[in-house]
């Protein structure tokens, strides 16, 4: 396990990657209270290395990486808007570093 200092350093660095390379995204909660928030999220179209995701969710699927620091809970059917394209989340998976929940990995079948 990492030392707390090094884990924090890596956490900061990984969050910085999303801030640096991510895209402006608007999150809309489907359940009440139907909150919205403007965030920067990782946004990726599946590549040849993501065959399982393509097989499961289709060629038009998208992979979002959302910082837990931005939104604590992201759920299925929440909506993410990138520019004028709106995506509905189909599945959310957690990404951990040691015992810390860093990111939500959210997959959408497409806009």
């Amino acid at each position, binding site marked *: 396990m990492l030392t707390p*200092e*090094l884990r924090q350093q890596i956490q900061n*660095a990984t969050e910085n*990657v999303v801030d640096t390379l*991510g895209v402006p995204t608007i999150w809309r909660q489907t359940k009440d209270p139907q909150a919205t928030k403007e965030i920067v999220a*990782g946004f990726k179209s599946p590549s040849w290395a993501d065959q399982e995701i393509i097989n499961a969710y289709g060629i038009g699927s998208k992979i979002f*990486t959302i910082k837990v620091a931005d939104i604590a809970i992201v759920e299925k059917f929440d909506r993410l808007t990138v520019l004028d394209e709106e995506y509905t989340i189909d599945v959310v998976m957690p990404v951990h570093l040691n015992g810390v929940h860093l990111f939500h*990995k959210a997959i959408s079948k497409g806009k």
Partner: protein
Amino acid sequence: MLPVSVETLRVRVGLDSSDASRDDDINYASELSLSLMGNYCDRLFPEEADYEEIFTHKRGMSLSLIRYPITVVTSIIDSNGTVVSAYHTAAKRGIVNLDAYGCFHEVTVIYTGGYVEGGFPADLLSAFYGIFDQEFAAIGTSSSSAVISSVTVQDVGTVRFDTGGANDSSGAAYLPTSAAAILDNYKRYKC
């Protein structure tokens, strides 16, 4: 001695200018940085008054002082007690040019030299900050602690960082690359 005021360094490390809680760490990092700069350039940067430098078995027409720029040379006395008074100084290069050829068993130079607080040139101060930041950040971490050179977040991308020569295998590996490049211009001129 600090090259800038302690208040400036407190702000530099993210503290309030009146917050003295980490002055020990600031002083340690500052002294270590100046020492590293000195080792790299083979000279001493901070000013010290009446600094005594002894040359042994010295021959020639010049003395290359280690602490400069020279403010004033107080005295040059050889081991026989003879006062050397015929000389000129190249203050910015730290050189005392003797008017006559010297052949000394031992010669002692007492002088005031170095940069005063707030008097460091901007580029030298930039090099100092580069080293100071590195050393201050390293306080409390072991020397073997990892330096993050790149971070990859799957499905997002990779960001690579300038590790400032931390992974450099050259002789100046303990200095950030940018600082070493600046300090190259401040290496001691020996003659």
